[in-house]
């Protein structure tokens, strides 16, 4: 690697340094916008005891679900996890820790973590099980709870295009949690559909500036659809 050229050629290089017990922030919403090849590489590496911060946990045989099957995940911090039979089994058997977090709070925890803000107040979850054990404070007559932000040793994300400096553009709703996840990893690895020359992406169209990105790898994606719904007629 020279200067700002962050492109790596192999998945081994992309995920090197990941070790047992680390926290990994993952982009994606359901199966949309997930870094498929990076997840597969973690499976290959057999890294275990991982904490994943991700809105969902894939399905049984795709997305983060494949790491559950190999029992590599110790804890999930997610907003919705119901799409996965093995998840249910491990959770009910007490093999898997789950911290359910409201979706907007989860996004903000990543955003704040990446922005150097250790905690923030939100009305979301006040008076619910989510508020248990958390500080409550009143602002302008309304109650808010204190939520701590999240960072991880690694962030794994998917983008559409990257230039070699790691400037990123996302494609449609595959953006979702990826921009926040990108900021919240000590090492951020992005898997992209296309790598372009520096200068091809206009400065004003860049959605994640390269400063957040450490490694780039070109992937090839299955892009599995979770719920195919079609117009009638």
């Amino acid at each position, binding site marked *: 690697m020279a200067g700002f050229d962050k492109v790596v050629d192999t998945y081994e290089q992309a995920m090197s340094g990941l070790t047992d017990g680390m926290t990994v922030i993952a982009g994606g*919403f359901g199966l949309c916008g997930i870094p498929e090849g990076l997840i597969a590489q973690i499976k290959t590496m057999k890294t275990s005891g991982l904490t994943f911060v991700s809105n969902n946990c894939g399905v049984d045989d795709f997305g983060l679900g494949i790491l559950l099957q190999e029992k590599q995940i110790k804890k999930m911090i997610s907003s919705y996890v119901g799409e996965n039979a093995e998840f249910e089994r491990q959770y009910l058997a007490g093999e898997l820790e789950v911290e359910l977090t409201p979706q907007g709070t989860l996004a903000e925890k990543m955003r704040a973590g990446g922005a150097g803000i250790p905690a923030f107040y939100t009305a979301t979850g006040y*008076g619910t099980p989510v508020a248990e054990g958390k500080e409550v404070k009143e602002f302008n007559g309304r109650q808010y709870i204190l939520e701590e932000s999240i960072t991880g040793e690694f962030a794994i994300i998917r983008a559409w295009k990257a230039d070699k400096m790691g400037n990123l553009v996302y494609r449609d709703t595959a953006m979702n949690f990826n921009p926040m996840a990108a900021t919240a990893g000590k090492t951020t690895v992005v898997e992209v559909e296309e790598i372009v020359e520096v200068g091809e992406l206009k400065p004003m169209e860049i959605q994640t500036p390269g400063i957040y990105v450490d490694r780039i790898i070109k992937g090839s994606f299955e892009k599995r659809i979770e719920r195919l719904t079609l117009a009638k007629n």
Partner: protein
Amino acid sequence: MSLSRDQIAKRVAQELQDGFYVNLGIGIPTLVANYVPTDMEVMLQSENGLLGMGPYPTEDNVDADMINAGKETVTAVTGASIFSSAESFAMIRGGHVDLTVLGAFEVDQNGNIASYMIPGKLVKGMGGAMDLVAGAQNIVVTMTHADKRGNSKLLASCSLPLTGVDCINKVVTDLAVMKIENGAFHLLERAPGVSVEEIIEKTAGKLIVPEFVPEMSFE
């Protein structure tokens, strides 16, 4: 006759106003999109990061990168925008969405809602529901008035773990339209052919019934 799911959606659609940004939850709320009056413009917000959600795609237009919060393949309307989850919930939490429609297990007379967790059953998670109820100024809950065993879902106090407190203004059920104000349900309309007595019987929380309760109109 109690309302069908589509009729509930049709009644909720009457709460829409021209120029509204609207978030529709999963289930009956999603059906509301089918009944937006043709002379009205509304923009649908999907919390995975899409403002201006369009109909389901034709087979030729299916794109795995274009989904809604229910993980269904969708399209974007002209004028739509796409953004991150943090931006999406900034809109929601910041009170920028004009109307939120969502389902629930229980609602109580103080505007509390329980919608994501039944103890003893597997908890799948709250998704964006807690953020939506905390952020919206204007929330309509859709649900059946009573469960399959006839137990009221409109209670004095929710029995299930809460999704949010003091946040629900209006409930549209298969039997009635009610607003929630000052610690009580207020009966506004009844489904065609449904008696006020039946609604009283199936409402466990405090219900204020005016002298005249009009039937819902679907014109």
